[in-house]
């Protein structure tokens, strides 16, 4: 049974006036968790996460919850189910069925790194959580998230010239999300950025000299890494989706 914040427990029974064998146990003793036994735990996920350079520190976690206490998504944004400690615990247990409930949540980490700063055990929490999210995505448990798509668009854009073309990235990403290009105030902002020399896009896009030689090497590194993380998946879980 994973250690869980009360609010996350499924099957929690509360009763205002509860009697057990004729004795009134309401008050402090009015909450019970329905008994459950898990026999289908699968350690593939923690094995995979540990094998990634980003996830290698997962075993150090001792579940203190410092990461979650300070997490800006959990505390400031108030997304209670965003709980990095719990994600790591579920991965360590191999309880991927429970983790699947957070398929739409794990990707929302904004990478502020407060957790990495504070972790007393040196867990790179932010990267471990991203690795858990990647595993969920690669095994088809979670759909590819907007953040995953943004990371890809960003990386491709950067690798093309060595210098990011923000306007190009904006267009590619927004079009990919099926959103229309900006109008009104946002369009005026874009034009103003362009006219004040703050956007270098299209023929004005900047380029790092000598990039032509490094670019294919970096692109090969990228495709090797993307292929390797798929190859590392457990055999009984055939990778889903494209290459």
């Amino acid at each position, binding site marked *: 049974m994973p250690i869980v914040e009360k609010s996350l427990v499924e099957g929690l029974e509360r009763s205002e006036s509860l009697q057990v064998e004729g004795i009134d146990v309401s008050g402090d003793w009015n909450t019970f968790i329905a008994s459950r036994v898990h026999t289908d735990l699968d350690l593939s996920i923690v094995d995979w996460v540990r094998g990634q*350079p*980003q996830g290698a520190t997962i075993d150090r976690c001792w579940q203190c919850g410092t990461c979650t206490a300070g997490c*800006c*998504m959990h505390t*400031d*944004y108030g997304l209670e189910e965003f709980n990095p400690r719990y994600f790591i615990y579920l991965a360590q247990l191999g309880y991927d069925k429970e983790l699947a409930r957070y398929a739409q949540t794990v990707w*929302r980490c*904004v*990478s*502020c*790194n*407060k957790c*990495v*700063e504070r972790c007393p055990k*040196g867990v790179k929490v932010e*990267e471990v959580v*991203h690795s858990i999210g990647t595993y969920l995505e690669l095994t088809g448990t979670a759909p590819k*998230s*907007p*953040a*995953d*798509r*943004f*990371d*890809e668009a*960003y*990386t491709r854009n*950067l*690798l093309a010239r*060595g*210098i*990011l073309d*923000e306007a190009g990235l*904006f267009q590619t*990403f*927004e079009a990919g999300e099926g959103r229309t290009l900006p109008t009104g*105030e*946002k369009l005026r*902002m874009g034009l103003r*950025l362009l006219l*004040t*020399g*703050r*956007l*270098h896009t299209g023929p004005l896009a*900047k380029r*790092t*000299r*000598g*990039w032509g*030689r*490094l*670019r*294919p*090497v*970096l692109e090969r*590194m*990228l495709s090797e*890494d*993307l292929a390797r993380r798929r190859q590392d998946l457990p055999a009984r879980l055939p990778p889903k989706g494209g290459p």
Partner: protein
Amino acid sequence: MSGTAASPKETPAYYPGCSMDGLGKAYEVSCQLVLETLGLPLDRIEEYNCCGATEVKNLSHDVSVALPSRNLALARDMGRQTVVAACNGCVYSLARANDAMEDPATSARINARLSEGGAPTYDGQAEIRHVLEYIRQRAGPRGVRAAVTAPLKGVRVAPYYGCLYSRPKRYTKVGLEPGRDNPENPYFLDELLEACGAEVIHDYPAKTICCGGGHALSDLDVSVAFSASVLNEAKRAGADVVATICPLGQINIENNLDRIRQAYGPEVLLPVAYFTQLMALAFGRSVREARLKLNFSRPDLFFRARGFA
């Protein structure tokens, strides 16, 4: 890090990154004005490449280490040990690469690839500084005070550090070496703004929170909520203006202004400016020279109303 400490007289290398040469133009221009006034030179790394911020690492660890390492290698080829960057995202990814390159196997693997692509190899000996730390370390509040000709008297400023300026310390070494800022309760910006004569709001809840900029396009709700929170908390603490130290934070907050107005009302809005724009004003530069009109939150209007030329 093994090598010897950088000479205190060394002119550091300057890594502009994509933002300073683009969206962060007002930061770049005002930064140069401030450094010039204080007599703190920086030598620009030419032909740099984008650092990869927090995005590339989610796809490939090695690419995310190779990108910053190439820039650090260029700085080392210039004979420099200290590398100054003005963007929190750049500071983070440069420092993260530094940390990864301490591992001999990683260093050998990445350097082999850099060589193969005709790029210089990186010896792992650079030290990364945010420009805020550089100014605080070299000029200090005393040096800044001596340069002030138009103090920001009666201007209540909320210093906003954002996320990746100091953290995580395992990468940035902030708080782990003498003369560095405090990673949990940074104060260098407070000191510099105070030296400029501003009334600094030292404590407000949003001082080091994330601006949500990393997910500005992929998770709009979050980026609007965090941006609004920075402005709202600064305003509740009585601020007239928010000072930023990161182009990503500045741009993300300003890009969300219309949504913040719609969701939370116009009373939440505040002018937002790069700390170097405020310092330039205090050093007697005009609102125009400090490029305050480039900011969408219009700090130019505020400062003109306060009698700044």
